[in-house]
Structures are given as structure tokens and as C-alpha cells.
């Protein structure tokens, strides 16, 4: 397997080495007084480390100036933070031609040591003027940015970027019920083909050893079987590591909360709280509530939170049922974004229907509850 690993590294370097403009040797671009722009209530750069205080809403903006660099000369970005708040989100954007382009939320948490293959960023070509990283947290907090730097191509960094991808973690996404890609949004490789290559090269290495031993080592299926098991374990340890970090994340979010509090702290917290406010304005326990929205997910989830009221939500259009199916006393919840127009005195209608007379029972920035007259 070691031979297989060596062969894999050789394959990566020979066939997947990032291209460069050919102007070498290039220096890494690090954080210095000249290359750094910071927007934060208080900050100081000492020995290449940036101590940063996030503003009132927990926001800090750090920009690494990179005037005139050729994007393909810098295939690796290193981001490393110390003591980041647990809910910290980093959003990265590029400045090209004086304009900010291509924003990315860096999914990986925590952002303590991240190596990113920059060619996976859309728009990483031509001349890059600056990289801006917006750090946001719910609460004001302090942290240290130990490094934001751009690096030219090297075999070591290629390996570090791959290892960084394999060790990365992002909290659950809805799509993961359907598929688990195993790769971060900006990963250079899918882990499965990478490990399959390692496995195949290890098989080849074993075959070569058997042939070169001239009969001293006989072929045994047990060896390929053990290579296979080892490769499976590699993939699984990556997965278990993510699972462990997910559990830590969930513990931070939900531990010690009651069932209701969990919903109010969960991924749909805002919607849950809004629906709770809506339900407080409905007195009939068996009220019919039609959810009108063009946001499929929000509509479906809103209907679920409305239960045990008699909620109606339809996956397909139209957002509201035909007039013949509506009657006095029915509630209509218009949830933004929606094609339905709600007027506080006149009622509610879709662009293609007449106005259904209704009274506004509750209104907020994102939703309006009406009761049909």
C-alpha cells in the first residue's frame, strides 16, 4: 500500500499539477501592512498575526490586496484563524477590474486551518486585485487571523489542499438525504475516485512485487482483500471525522433544549417562530389554513409547523385554491415570496383571480394572515 501511495502521489504531481504562467520563482503573498485592508472596530497586525474584534453585529472584513497577480500563478489559498466563535461564517469574494465578483460562503468549520485549491473558485482567472473575507458571527467577539496567504504551486501544498478537503466539515444540508458527495464545495477531488486510484495502484504494486519475487511470494487473495479494507477504512475515517464534528456542532446548538426550544434554535428557527406568532392569532383548533407561497420549502415547512391546525399546502401551482373551495372563516397565510397579493382592507388575490374578501389578522415582514369574510 505504501508503494501504491507513492505511485498515487506521483500521478497527482504528474497529471494534476496546477498550471502556472511560467514566471518563477514566485513568492507567497502574506498579510503585511501593505497588503492588508481591515474594516473592524479594532484590529492590530503584530508579527503577521491579525487580532480582530468583530463589530456590533459580529462582522469584520479583511482584504488581502493582490494587485496585478496572475490567478493561475497562485493555485492555493491558506486561511487560518485562532479562537473563532463557533457560529463564525466566512464569505469570500474576489475583486477583478475594480469590481467585487463571485462570492463564496466557505462551508468548512471551524476555520482554523484551511487550504483551498483556488482553481475551484469560479472566476479564478486573469488578474486578481484583492481577496476579501467577510467574517460574521451572531454576537460581537474577538479572534485572531493567523494567516491569509496565497501560494504558488507546489507538491506539498497540493497534498495539503487534498488533506484539508478530506478533513473539512460542513453542517448537514437538506440534499444530503439524497446524496453525499463527500467533497466540499471547493474541493479539488472527490474522495472516492482518489481512494479508488490508491487502491488500484496498490493492487498493481502488489502484482509487481509478486512477479518480481520470482516465486518467493505467491499470490494470495487475502492481500488485495486487506488493501481493499484499508482503503475503505480511509474513506470511513474521513466520514467518521465529519460525523464527530457534526455531533459537536449539534451539541453546541441543541444540547439542553426542550423539544420546542430545539425547533426555535434549529435550521428553520425563523420560520418556526413566525408560524408560532401566526398560530397565536388563530383561535379555532380545527381552523383551515391555506399556505400561499412560491417558496416550496418554506411552504411545506410552514404547513408542517401549522399542524395540528388543518393546513393546506400544494406543491404545484396555483398557490391558492379555486374560489369554489374557499369559504368564510378560512385562513390564508401569504408567505413571502408569493404571487398572492394581500391588502389589509380588501382581501387577497392571485394575479389571475378576483379579490377574495378577507380581513388581515396578522402581518409581519415576511407573512400576512388573512381571514376570509
Amino acid at each position, binding site marked *: 500500500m505504501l508503494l501504491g501511495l507513492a505511485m498515487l502521489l506521483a500521478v497527482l504531481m504528474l497529471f494534476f499539477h496546477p498550471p502556472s504562467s511560467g514566471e518563477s520563482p514566485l513568492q507567497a503573498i502574506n498579510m503585511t501592512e501593505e497588503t492588508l485592508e481591515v474594516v473592524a472596530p479594532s484590529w492590530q497586525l503584530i508579527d503577521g498575526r491579525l487580532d480582530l474584534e468583530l463589530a456590533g453585529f459580529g462582522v469584520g472584513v479583511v482584504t488581502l490586496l493582490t494587485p496585478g497577480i496572475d490567478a493561475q500563478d497562485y493555485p492555493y489559498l491558506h486561511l487560518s484563524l485562532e479562537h473563532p466563535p463557533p457560529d463564525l461564517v466566512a464569505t469570500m469574494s474576489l475583486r477583478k477590474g475594480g469590481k467585487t465578483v463571485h462570492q463564496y460562503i466557505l462551508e468548512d468549520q471551524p476555520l482554523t486551518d484551511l487550504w483551498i485549491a483556488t482553481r475551484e473558485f469560479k472566476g479564478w482567472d486573469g488578474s486578481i486585485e484583492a481577496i476579501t473575507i467577510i467574517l460574521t458571527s451572531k454576537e460581537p467577539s474577538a479572534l485572531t487571523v493567523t494567516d491569509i496567504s496565497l501560494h504558488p504551486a507546489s507538491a506539498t501544498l497540493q497534498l495539503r489542499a487534498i488533506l484539508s478537503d478530506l478533513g473539512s466539515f460542513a453542517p*448537514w444540508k*437538506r440534499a*444530503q*438525504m*439524497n*446524496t*453525499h*458527495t*463527500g*467533497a466540499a464545495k471547493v474541493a479539488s477531488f*472527490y474522495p*472516492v*475516485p482518489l481512494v*479508488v486510484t490508491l*487502491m488500484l495502484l496498490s493492487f498493481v504494486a502488489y502484482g509487481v512485487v509478486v512477479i518480481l519475487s520470482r516465486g518467493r*511470494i*505467491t*499470490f*494470495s*487473495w*487475502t492481500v488485495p*482483500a486487506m488493501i*481493499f*479494507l484499508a*482503503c*475503505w477504512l480511509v*474513506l*470511513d475515517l474521513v*466520514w*467518521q471525522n465529519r*460525523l*464527530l464534528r*457534526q*455531533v459537536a456542532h*449539534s*451539541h453546541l*446548538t*441543541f444540547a439542553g433544549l426542550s*423539544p420546542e426550544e*430545539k*425547533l426555535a434554535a*434549529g*435550521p428553520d428557527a425563523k420560520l418556526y417562530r413566525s408560524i408560532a406568532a401566526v398560530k397565536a392569532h388563530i383561535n379555532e383548533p380545527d381552523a*383551515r389554513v391555506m399556505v400561499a407561497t412560491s417558496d416550496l*420549502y418554506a411552504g*411545506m*415547512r410552514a*404547513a*408542517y409547523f401549522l*399542524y*395540528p391546525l*388543518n*393546513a*393546506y399546502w*400544494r*406543491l404545484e401551482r396555483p398557490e391558492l*385554491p*379555486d374560489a369554489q*373551495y374557499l*369559504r368564510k372563516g378560512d385562513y390564508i397565510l401569504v408567505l413571502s415570496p408569493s404571487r398572492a397579493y394581500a391588502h389589509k382592507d380588501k382581501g387577497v388575490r392571485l394575479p389571475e383571480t378576483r379579490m377574495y374578501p378577507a380581513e388581515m389578522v396578522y402581518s409581519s415582514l415576511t407573512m400576512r394572515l388573512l381571514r376570509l369574510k
Partner: protein
Amino acid sequence: MESVLVLLALALPIALGGLWLSVLVPADTLARTPLIWSHGALLGLVLVPQFLWLQNALGLTLSFALPALVSTILILTASVILLRRTPISNRTQPALRKMTAAQKWLFMLLLILLIVRLALLGTEVFLRPLFPWDATMHWATKAKIWFEYRSIVPFTDNLSWLQAFGEGVFTDRHPNYPSTIPLLQVWMNLAAGEWNESLMNLPWLVCLAALGGAFYSQLRIAGVEPTLSMVFTYFLLSMPLINTHVALAGYADLFVGAAYCAALMALHNWVSGKQAWQRVLLILFALCLIRLKIEGYLWALLLAPGLIVALAPKHAVIRLAGIGILCVIGLVVFRQVAPESLHPFLQQFTPLSMKGLMGIIKSVFLHANWHLFAYLLPMVAALSLLLPLSVLKTYRGIATALFASVGAFLFLFLFTVFSLGSANFTGVGRLSIQLAPGLMFLCALLSNAILVRQVWPAKGTGHR
């Protein structure tokens, strides 16, 4: 008190299924302990919701007490039967004693990894509220209403609901899905005494552990050595998409996959060993499939070709072809008699969907849903061609059933409108969960045959 009742809600189905299987399964059966408790847990988790269904059918209010009482009486009955039997000394498993030190280490390492995984998944289930899309679109919707009303209030489609002005009915995306999964969640919530979106999903963890135990024990019964059985059990339980369906519980696919795998394993081991209790397991798990999800009907039906090939090998191909021709004739006649009823069905068909094909390839070979399983299966299938025909014949039943199921799976995602579910990865992974455990079982059997026989170049002796 809530914790005790929740634990009881988990323990009762396991004890109910386990003890009755203990009555059924002979004492000298290999790997009997994991066999009875794991299969028992799977059966119990499907059976207890049926008690709730029956309670409702009798016009009674849904409660924890009555199904718990019925379960307890059944558990006591099984216990009395077992106590009356002559006790048999607990035999040590000779195969376990025969293991080398390296094998024991590997066995223990994998077992520890599995325990750690179950602990992590259990913590995640315990912490999180309901998260996945379909769970709140058509599974927990029913559970929530039935729990609040303490009654199985009918659900209808959107139009019927509108026409009835919602009087006495509720609506969601799939009102016709079987009631077992929502009732299982109702059962847990009745025990908790409140609507608790974390505790109600604990049965998914039990299901995964039970699938592992059932898989291991049936492999042992099929003659696979303990270490290799553990290796394949580890492979099965470590697959990320299966883990995700436990951590983010709320879908029926894991239960369907576990029941289908259990039915296939029972089919194979019944055909090979002719133990009557395996036949009972096959029937029970085929019934479970029907009560879990719509696809379950198809998987249960597609066990039949496997049975025909395994039990009537003479002219089996002719019989299968005959059944196929009869189905085609039936469809043609049906089309003549009632063309309008077949029209929506025929509208589902499409020419070969290349996007669907690419979706399957990416989902299986590129994404990390199954770790390396997609590479293992073809490798093992190819190598198994080197096995003697007499050995290969042993697997014809399970292989035919799986071949039929995989064929149906491919047809669905390549030649129907559901290819979209493959192209955008929304359906292909979830349906794969239902087939992957069964395929892994066949893979384990074939791998065992290859390793035991050292099929090529000759019976090897390993390193000198």
C-alpha cells in the same frame, strides 16, 4: 418517568420480536443470539405500530398503555414457553475460538468502530429536531396529527380535501403511504407524553443496529467465518447514506432496506439450509415490506422470481419467461378492456434517459454514498465467474431476486419520468438504500467463496 417510558417504548418491540423468535429458532442455531434479537427488533418495530392501528380500528383512543399491555402479555407468553423448555447449556462458538490473534484484533477493531458510530449517530438523533424534507412533507405530518388527535384521522389528496372542505380530513403530499412509520413515531411520542421530534426518531438507530446484527448472524449461518462476517457488517453499517438516514431520521427507506435485506437473507438461507423458521422469517419480512412503503410491494413481489429459480431450478427459465409473457398478455388485454386506466401508467415511460444514466453513475461511482461498494460489487461479480458452477448455483435464488430488483430500479431511472430523480440525485440515492443491504449480502457470500477457495491462480498458501 419520561425517560423510562421512552426506553420501554424501545425495549418492548425488541423483547416482543426477540422472545418470539427465540421460541421459533432452534437452540443449536449458529449466531443465535444476534439472530433472534436483531431480527426480533426489526419485526417488533413494524409490529407495534400495527397494534396502534388495530386499537384505532376498534374505535379506541390511541394510547401507550394498551399496546404496551398487549406486548407485555405476548412477551410473558413467549417467556413461559421458553421456560418450559429444557434448558440447553450455552455452547461456545467453536469458530470464534478458532480465530487467529490477527483475526480477533481485526474483529474487535471493527466492532469498536461500529459501536463508536452507533454512539455518534445516537447522539445526533437524540439532539436534533426533525430535519429532512420528506419527513415533514408526508411522514411526520400524519404522526403529528394522529398524536394530537389520538386517532388515525384520514389523510386525503389536495383535491379531495378541498372538495370535503377539510371536514374530518387532513391533507399532505402523499396521503396514501402506509401508516407504519408515522405510527412508530406516534408510539414514541405517546411514551414521551409530548410531541418530541428527537426521541421519536430513536427507532431508526435501533433499526440500523438490528440490520447489522441480522446481517452478521445470517452471514454466519451461511457459512461465512466470523471475521469476514464482521468485515462485511462493518462495510454495510459504515455506508454514509445509510448513516445519514439515521442521523437525520424520518424517512422509511432504511426500514425498507432492512426488511428487504432480511427477507433476501432468509430466502437464501432457507433455500440452502431448509430450516422452516427461515421460511417464516421470509414471509414475515415480505409482509413488513408491504406495510412500510409503496416500493415495498414491488420488492416483496420481486422475491418471487428468486424463489422460483431456487426451488424449481428445472425449467426455471421457461417458467420465468412464461410469467413474463403472461404479464405482457395481461397488459395487452387490460389495454383493450380499459385503455383509459392504463393511459396514465403508459405516460410515465420515456426513451432511455442519458441524464438519468449519468445521475446513476455519478451517484454510485463518484459520490461517497456507498464508500467503495460500487467498486467492490463488480469486482466480486467478475471474480465469482471463476468459481465452479456447482458453487455458483447456490446463489441463484438470491441473485435472481436481486437481479429483478436492480432491473426494476434501472428501468425506473432510465426509462420513466422518474429519471429526473436520478439526474438531480433526489431519488436515486434513497432508492439505493433499499437495495444496498441485500446487494451487500450477496457480495459477502461471493467474496467468502472467492477467499475460501482462492479461485485463482490455484489454491494459494499466502506468503511463504
